[in-house]
């Protein structure tokens, strides 16, 4: 293998290749590291849904390990209370909290310091963060300070027979998957993108154990200052990941004009629209419409993929959909390997017919006319 600098990409295993051969005894200083932590991301007063998704996943890991699940909340006094309550509602056994007005809005310096101090003090074996801009900014700093392993954008997390975290993620630009371990360092850190894991059920539960910790910084210690925040005007941008119905198009649509057909069907169904990566690379649609490993991950009730071949990097972004419908002229396209319903057809002809069919079925105007 000639890779010299590929972050987190496959690299040669030690001679012999088996994990037993690679694994040394966990160093003594890491043996006291126990339990599973989820960093709870608060964005302007709201807990980011990815944190709940991670609590759901962390619960499964903790149960397999016979360990406890903790939510880790950093924020301003008055802002952390709701987040702490939500940790328990989503299955945490305890919460670690740093409440300080310095933490009212995200900045790398105080958040990295606070989280690193918590890890050094309470020693978790697994630490999960959302792969959002905030989570990635923070995770990269904290893992480097702790000199431990960090696996980005995991699509699957599991605990293997000897209690190590097995973190699976796409590699080589999304053409293959790989499973990565952090064998001899703790904590084992991983980030997961929003919507990759299922949203667990919320259950009203009393607030349990809360361990508070102090930040130990004053505002003057922090160099970076927040001057302002400009909210996005186009609120729909953020909705694609959480839409119940999504229609997306790929290069198979042949021309940028044909995305009107995708948007038309999405509108008729009351859903949102997106596209595959090559469509963004061609400049047909902006990057925020991209669905897949390097774009948005979606978990809609219905996903219609029109003229999308189904490369792995796209697949990992849509596999959580309840129902995947594929329309493609190539009956051997990989998308038919993971779609639930498939049809070999030209999407450019079928999409307008579907839009019309939806209208015929559901529009009150059409129905009235038919009834009359």
């Amino acid at each position, binding site marked *: 293998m000639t890779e*010299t600098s590929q972050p987190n990409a496959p690299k040669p295993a030690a001679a012999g290749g088996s994990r037993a051969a690679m694994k040394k005894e966990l160093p003594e200083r890491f043996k006291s590291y126990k339990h599973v932590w989820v960093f709870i991301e608060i964005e302007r007063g709201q807990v980011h849904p990815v944190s709940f998704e991670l609590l759901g996943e962390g619960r499964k890991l903790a149960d397999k390990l016979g360990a406890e699940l903790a939510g880790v909340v950093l924020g301003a006094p008055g802002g952390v209370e709701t987040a702490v309550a939500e940790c328990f509602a989503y299955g945490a056994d305890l919460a670690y909290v740093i409440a300080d007005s310095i933490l009212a809005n995200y900045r790398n310096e105080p958040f990295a310091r606070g989280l690193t101090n918590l890890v050094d003090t309470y020693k978790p074996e697994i630490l999960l963060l959302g792969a959002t801009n905030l989570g*990635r900014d923070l995770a990269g700093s904290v893992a480097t300070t702790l000199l431990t392993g960090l696996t980005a954008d995991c699509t699957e997390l599991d605990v293997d027979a000897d209690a190590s975290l097995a973190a699976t993620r796409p*590699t080589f630009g*999304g053409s293959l*998957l*790989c*499973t*990565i371990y952090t064998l001899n360092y703790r904590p084992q850190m991983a980030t997961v993108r929003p919507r990759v894991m299922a949203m667990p059920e919320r259950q009203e539960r009393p607030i349990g154990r809360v361990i508070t910790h102090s930040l130990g910084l004053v505002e003057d210690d922090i160099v970076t200052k927040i001057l302002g925040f400009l909210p996005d005007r186009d609120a729909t941008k953020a909705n694609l990941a959480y839409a119940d119905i999504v229609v997306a198009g790929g290069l198979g649509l042949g021309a940028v004009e044909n995305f009107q057909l995708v948007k038309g069907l999405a509108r008729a169904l009351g859903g949102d629209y997106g596209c595959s990566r090559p469509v963004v690379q061609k400049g047909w649609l902006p990057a925020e419409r991209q669905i897949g490993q390097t774009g948005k991950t979606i978990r809609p009730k219905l996903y219609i993929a029109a003229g999308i071949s189904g490369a792995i990097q796209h697949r990992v972004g849509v596999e959580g959909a309840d129902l995947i419908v594929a329309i493609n002229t190539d009956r051997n396209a990989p998308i038919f390997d993971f779609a639930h319903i498939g049809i070999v057809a030209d999407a450019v002809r079928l999409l307008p017919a*579907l839009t019309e069919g939806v209208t015929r079925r559901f529009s009150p105007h059409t129905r009235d006319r038919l009834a009359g």
Partner: protein
Amino acid sequence: MHIVVCIKQVPDSAQIRVHPVTNTIMRQGVPTIINPYDLFAIEEALRLRDAHGGSVTLVSMGPPNAEDTLRKALAFGADRAVLLTDRYFAGSDTLATSFALASAIAKIGATYGAPDIVFTGKQTIDGDTAQVGPGIAKRLGLLQLTYVSRIASVDPEARLIEVERRAEGGIQQLRTQLPCLVTMLEGSNTIRRGTMADALKAARAQVVIWTAAEAGIEELTKCGLRGSPTVVKRVFAPGSRAEKARMIDPGTSARDTADALLDAIFAAQGALEADVAAAQASL
């Protein structure tokens, strides 16, 4: 100002193919390119140099042939390029990569002047981790500004920088002190076409090539496979779903085909009918 830009040579992912039988990457003949996200970092560095004077140094860690990539990047108008290449770096994960690059940047600082700003792209298109930038910042003790969509101002005298940073639901406006590390967001600028003079200069330029020892790295245990806490156990292609897709037969007209498909969709997801009816009513 002295500005350092970290770049990476990556395989052109659009042309990566997976062997259908062995599930391994077929590397032969896959062309390499400058990581596309790095172009935004290069352009921003050149703009700051043009506005404030000084120089831009490119640095990359990679195989010996990454020299070509650095030379191509020099043609945009950077002043010098350093390639960090050594078998000790083979198998580096993000932690080991950030160690090697931070060491090289420290050596670059000692040789050509301490950098005021270190730039990286948002992430690479092969690893896609976005971890190396923050790793370098932490190791060099630099303040870190990630996902920067715009540099509003730089004041080299007052040692201040103001940026706009992409956050969830909006743009965060931040001010911090130099030196710092900035990761640039895609679309934040458009890479210039280098001048003919820059192209000629790049063709003649000597890319500085450092081994680990020449970069001043003594702790080889922090490099490459040995310096990487993560271990890749398995590389694989996902299998097909156990249950094959239910294929709908196309009808004689697009209308019949559409109706058959909608019947199948709502038979599987009947609960959606009310939602769609509501959406139709609101149109």
